[in-house]
């Protein structure tokens, strides 16, 4: 069973905090004394989903490990905007080495802590989808295969944003990037390629794999805290919209993540030892157009030279996710 939503206390657990909830039912982010792992002054764009997702996740991991946490970071936006030498926004021990080796670095830290007998110290590794699904993939698979005691968090914004929005293996079909036909009559990424890393992680039969979005904080915190209570290799992929790379308004970051989940484009689930153990159901199902339309990377699908057949193919992907993961309740979803 996943995070148990409190459905009715005005806003229940839908909001970050709620004065009507008992203290032990409240979120880490609602706490005045949360660790603020990534502090103000970082150079992320306005409305950055990754900066938000990273604070949500690392604050939760800090809370669960009583602050005994070391982070290894892959190259990418998160590293660049947080730590331009000699400044850093990170308020925990943090190491950056290369683009592709964050899982290996984290493995090494975990091994060192084990040798030193520092069992209380926990290790996370983190990176964007480029560093995770492409460049660091070999190291990541090795870390999974050895079941090293590391929680790897991938902040998925579906392209290489830091270097100017190039396609990654997490870029969805039809999305326009700098390298997926930015111009021409058929711009956008091709169908049928790319990697589903959460499913690949599950294929390693590691103790815990989960997906989450920045639109559902309570589910995200639940998954990070649960992962931190386990040992061995764990993987969480967090969906973090990118206003710059997607061409969305900076205030729409959370809305886009919510729509990705509500359309079925991004299935939110958790799996233990290779088996799905819980899914977050769609609350108010919406058509794919609602998710695509606000994004400039999909603008070529609409307007004068619209591509309804491409939209239909994207809808089919969402429908397949809904079917595969059972994202809809029988007889409609009800809050109360």
């Amino acid at each position, binding site marked *: 069973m996943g995070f148990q939503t409190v459905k009715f206390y005005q806003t229940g657990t839908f*909001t970050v*905090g709620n004065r*009507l909830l008992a203290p032990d039912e409240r979120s880490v*982010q609602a706490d005045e004394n949360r660790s603020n792992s990534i*502090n103000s*002054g970082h*150079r992320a764009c306005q409305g950055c989903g990754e*900066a*938000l997702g990273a604070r949500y996740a690392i604050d939760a991991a800090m809370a669960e490990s009583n602050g005994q946490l070391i982070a290894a970071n892959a190259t990418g936006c998160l590293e660049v905007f947080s730590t331009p*030498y000699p400044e850093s926004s990170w308020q925990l021990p943090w190491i950056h080495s290369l683009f592709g080796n964050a899982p290996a670095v984290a493995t090494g830290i975990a091994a060192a802590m084990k040798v030193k007998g520092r069992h209380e110290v926990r290790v996370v590794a983190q990176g964007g989808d480029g560093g995770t699904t492409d460049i660091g993939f070999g190291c990541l698979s090795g870390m999974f295969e050895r079941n090293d005691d590391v929680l790897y968090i991938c902040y998925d914004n579906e392209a290489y944003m830091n270097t100017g929005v190039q396609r990654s293996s997490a870029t969805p079909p039809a999305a326009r990037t700098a390298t997926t036909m930015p111009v021409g009559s058929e711009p956008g990424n091709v169908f049928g390629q790319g990697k589903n890393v959460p499913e690949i992680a599950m294929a390693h039969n590691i103790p815990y794999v989960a997906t989450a979005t920045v639109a559902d904080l309570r589910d995200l915190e639940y998954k990070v805290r649960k992962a931190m209570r386990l040992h061995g290799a764990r993987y969480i992929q967090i969906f973090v919209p990118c206003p710059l790379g997607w061409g969305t308004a900076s205030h729409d970051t959370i809305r886009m993540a919510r729509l990705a989940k509500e359309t079925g484009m991004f299935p939110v689930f958790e799996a233990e030892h290779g088996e799905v153990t819980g899914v977050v159901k769609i609350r108010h199902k919406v058509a794919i157009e609602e998710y695509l339309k606000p994004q400039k990377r999909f603008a070529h699908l609409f307007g004068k030279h619209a591509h309804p057949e491409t939209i239909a193919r994207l809808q089919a992907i969402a429908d397949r996710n809904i079917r595969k993961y059972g994202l809809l309740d029988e007889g409609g979803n009800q809050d109360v």
Partner: protein
Amino acid sequence: MSKPFAITLKPGTSLANLTGTWRSERPVYLDRLPPCNNACPAGENIQGWLFHAESGDYEQAWRVLTESNPMPAVMGRVCYHPCENSCNRAQLDSAVGINSVERFLGDEAIKLGWKFAAPATTSGKKVLVVGAGPSGLSAAYHLARLGHQVEIQEAGPLSGGMMRFGIPKYRLPREVLDAEVQRILDLGVTLKLNTKVARIEQSMKEGNFDAAFLAVGAHIGKRTFIPAGDATKIVDAVSVLRSMEGEDKPMLGRRVVIYGGGNTAIDVARTAKRLGATEAIIVYRRTRDKMPAHDFEVEEALQEGVMIKWLSTIKQAGEGEITVEKMQLDDKGYPQPTGEYETLAADSVVLALGQDVDLSLLEGVPGLELKDGTVQVSSNMMTGHPGIFAGGDMVPSERTVTVAIGHGKKAARNIDAWLRGTVHQAEAKHELAEFQNLNTWYYSDAHQTVRPMLDIIRRQTSFDEVQGGLDETNALFEARRCLSCGNCFECDNCYGVCPDNAVIKLGPGKRFEFKYDYCKGCGLCVAECPCGAIKMVAEET
């Protein structure tokens, strides 16, 4: 200092980087005016008292409520709740049952004996209130809490005005009314019953009053000429309802015809039914959608077996029967006679055609302006004569208990200012909290709790209260359906969703603050605020 190998700079923190300079718009917290508050004729801070009810602090909720309205148990029964008609939640699922929560709070207060706080200071000024109806009682309450000495002079034998002599018991049990009146009197308000003010200036002089508030109401039933034989009993609605409070119940017979289409007509028809009439027929000259009576009351009357003859006027009343003429609406919606007649059996005819004000107490007062049978007052509720204020049904306005209570409050504040030689300045209204200001994703679907209704047989045969109240559990549920439109309820969303940690949480009850040094102006806090309590404003360049 010596640095590690290959290190040339000291490690620094990103706090040195003031990203607030990137901003072209800044978020600001604000309170918007919830539509319920905006619609309330009594000026209640509904969102404000629901906020306390949500956390189960019913006494504090009641205290905030009674800052505007001293009679929540009455209002929770008889108010036509314009608040609920404007509730933003109606666009989501169904309006918050504000009226039922108000009644719950009022009943709790009576049950647990909550009292009003005594005024902190006394002004030494004396104010005469004429009439112990809702408007007079409300004014007396507010004046007393402002520290003035108040005396109510009431012509009738009991307090309450139209709440007692106009609203039937099945809508407002008298023990509820008595309890709320007594609580006002407990503040030190003097009530003189059976004391008709014949000449206002004389009464003020005799009692050394510094100001007066007139709230005599409108209790003279309007008549219309109906050719009638001697044997036909024609009475007016106000007299019927008033006599219900006495020992001798009105004798209306088995077949009662009520003439008119307002709430009073409905009240009389339902009363007649309860008194044993086999037929209670309302004759109204227009159609149901044009009827001034509230639709739910029409519906309840129909359920109880009241019949309504639409598009009909009474032409003649004979012995045991009346003649009605059928009407039809013209292009402009006015009823026109058709020349078609029919007869109805009737032992009595009750005229419910509206009420006039008895203005005799104002004779000879200089400066007053009377128009269409009402007293004209300026925006501060003062008549043309300095020191004499008026409100309720005797001034031009919608004639409801809620409006009357609002008049009493408004007049009291202006009388207070006038007595101090100042002018009352009402606070500027905040901008309205509209549905599009909300992010309704964050609220759970939850439909309004339906209040229990008395079974139909008892409704037709007794004066027991028709509509039941909520209990603690469902009153709490109902209060928590409030969206808190336009007013922060500390959900921590802004504090949580800021990617730049640029929101400071100040602690329970203290809300939040922006760290403008770091806020980049992305607007996520505004977009994700459930209740619309933040907005973006352009930075000055």
